[in-house]
């Protein structure tokens, strides 16, 4: 699977227009032919393609992902690994907010279906879903950092200040909240739909008929079953989230995976792209396995392959 992924990325990268040298040239400040040759030599791009791939694969299998092309002398694996922390922090915080808010609002909305709080929340959630990530990021930045100055405008810590947890939290909170908007809205929609579906099922009506209190019907019988598609959604989201929130990380200059990958793609830094994609791939597979386990936990009838 991972080998297939690496081969696929390798082929796609070579199909993509532009190579690391093209990324180095500023079209308005041209370089001479011999400068370009110097670059090509330094970047080691003169080998035939299959040789490059198998060379990379052999090294990768022994844990060596090579050096970044664009950052002189930086090894890929540590570079990628040090991005997992910030991404996990941002995504963890953002998704935690999203899951709590989304599930709670979804349940409430489904129960009070078509009452005005449901409609109000629907409208809000659709605003959340329909705002492009870059727009909510820029608006959030504008209001909370520039106008109100409640939160710093970017980065993970204050430049030049000594490291402190409070400082990181202050930098974290705004992007995390902005990140949670879209996810919370999405989770809320699926939770609401799924719960409505479940509330019509026989066992829920049975439970009601048995005289179980409505609150417990919803929490114990309905919610648990309604969670299945929501768990899948969260699983998929986490999987994608490992790759970082590209726009948000760019706007807030958060040193996560998304930023690394975007920079690497922008400079066609092949080894970093390969390394980062593989690490993301491992995480996605792990998360998907966890999701399957979570199904079995929620619904014991399901046997996981």
């Amino acid at each position, binding site marked *: 699977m991972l080998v297939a992924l690496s081969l696929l990325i390798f082929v796609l990268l070579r199909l993509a*227009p532009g190579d690391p040298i093209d990324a180095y*040239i500023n079209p308005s400040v041209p370089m001479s032919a011999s400068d370009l040759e110097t670059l090509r030599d330094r970047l080691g791009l003169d080998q035939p393609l299959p040789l490059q791939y198998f060379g990379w694969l052999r090294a990768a299998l022994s844990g060596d992902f090579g050096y970044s092309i664009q950052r002189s002398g930086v090894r890929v694996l540590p570079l990628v690994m040090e991005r997992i922390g910030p991404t996990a922090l941002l995504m963890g915080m953002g998704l935690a907010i999203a899951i709590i808010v989304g599930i709670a*609002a979804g349940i409430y909305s489904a129960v009070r279906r078509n009452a005005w709080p449901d409609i109000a929340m629907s409208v809000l959630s659709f605003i959340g879903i329909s705002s492009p990530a870059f727009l909510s990021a820029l608006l959030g930045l504008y209001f909370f950092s520039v106008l109100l100055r409640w939160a*710093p*405008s970017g980065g993970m810590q204050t430049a030049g200040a000594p490291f402190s947890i409070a400082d990181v939290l202050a930098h974290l909170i705004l992007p995390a909240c902005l990140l949670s908007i879209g996810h919370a809205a999405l989770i809320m929609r699926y939770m609401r739909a799924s719960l409505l579906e479940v509330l019509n099922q026989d066992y829920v009506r049975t439970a009601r008929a048995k005289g179980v209190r409505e609150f417990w019907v919803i929490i114990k019988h309905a919610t648990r079953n309604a969670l299945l598609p929501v768990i899948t959604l969260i699983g998929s989201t986490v999987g994608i989230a490992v790759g970082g929130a590209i726009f948000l990380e760019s706007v807030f200059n958060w040193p996560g995976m998304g930023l690394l990958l975007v920079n690497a793609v922008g400079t066609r830094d092949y080894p970093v792209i390969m390394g980062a994609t593989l690490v993301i791939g491992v995480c996605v597979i792990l998360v998907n396995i966890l999701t399957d386990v979570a199904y079995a936990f929620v619904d014991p009838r399901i046997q996981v392959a």
Partner: protein
Amino acid sequence: MRMKTIAIAAALLLGTGLPTIVQAQSPKTIAGGFDVGPGGFPKNFNPLVATGGFTWLSTYFEPLVIWNAGLTELEGDLAKNYTVSGDQLTYTFNLVKETWHDGKPFTSKDVKFTIELAKNKASGSLLAARLGDVASVEAPDDSTVIIKLSKPNGSFLSILSQVLILPEHALAGMPPESLATSTWWSTSPVGTGPFKFKKYVTDQYVELAADDDYRGGKPKVDVLINRYFESPAAAVAALRAGEIQFTYVETDDAASFKTDTSFKVIEGGSYVVNYIGLNQKVDLFKDLKVRQAIIYAIDRNAIIESLYGGAAKPANCGYVAPQLVPEGLETYAYDPAKAKALLTEAGWDKINGDKPITLLTYYGSPQAANVMAAVQSMLAQVGINVVPRVVDTPTYNGIVYKEGTPDWSAFPMVYAGLQNGPNPAGINPGLNKSQIPPAGFNTMRIEFDDLSAAFDKALGETDASKLDAAWQDVCKVMNKDLPWATLWVANRYGVASNKLKDFVWTPAPAGGPYAAHPEMWDIQ
């Protein structure tokens, strides 16, 4: 839900965020986005491979000679003064007294080491080709350097201004091959500049500390910080939030800062001529009449007035500097009727008609999008149907620079820019027939004999008094032949907080270097 998250954000921020933000920093600090914008080269620390970012690099490394802040002439930096022999083959530099940041004295040996290293391709140096005329570097005593050239080179000093001098004692031990991939550059570089390298927090910022024994006096601030931003918009936000005191900004943003009294807008020429390149390998633009029609059809003055706020000069050849532009150029004033007539005369119906023509660009800014929309609309009025396409820089280069036979139909027209100063030879690689890829950057494959001859003559001119006239000839030929539809040279902007005192910045191509004297910068 949005209200909820906002409320949570507010609550958490009040709890945790504010104290750390309010905390005053005791050392005097200037923070800026010094690598934002076209002159920057964020995350590069090695001056030998730099194609930009010299504004920042020259705060801790220094060259022998440097442009003045107006980019009008070169002055000494690590060279106290210099003399050039009558045959323009021998340059003698008298060096200043300075110590490296690690305390070792700076001597002529460092200069000799650096120039020889920069000449050595094995080090990955991108200066190697430009220093090709250097025959020898001698260090007769500690404070004198003599450089001999194999043939006269009018741009030699200008090239030398981008050779930042490196410490021999720190680098001589490393083989040149390993220098390019060394982490020395981003962890412990040693320079001679007013600030010394303190630390680099990956992809976030670089921190420098004052070098107390700098020859120009102890710097007035203790800490200089260069923050990295992924987009000019993010840098603008940080500037307005008061977190940084300086950044490059886009033209649109500059306009909104002009009315704000707590900021100062710094304006300067970009030294980049914008043009519409017309690919000579496609059959569309071989007829001069078609090229004339295109330039007549574009109302450059209206675009400059409305989209650039008047801050651009229309270009009728590759130059706008007064000493390079001869009298009596055709101005190609906006005249759509004439454009239509020229197209009819050329038989545009048969050449292309209204089939779509791709207009490729690497300029992704909102302003460039507006320019492209205006150009498209103006050309449509005379019957030329162009379809703008914006791609990222590597994609652009991958398309236009491809060796052999690229897909010509992918870039029949481009909207691009090329550096045309301070050294006027800058546009030669884009227009001379000897510079067709892979030899150079003539991506439009322009093979006009008279234009190439004019370039060759100007490049070979050793008599300084005849130099301007030679470049004027280049301008004249460009104006007549129209290898490009030249558009304008726009201004670029930086915005500095009014808290800064004696701050010097200019939008120099590749970031200079120029004499910004960071040791004088101060903050209230």
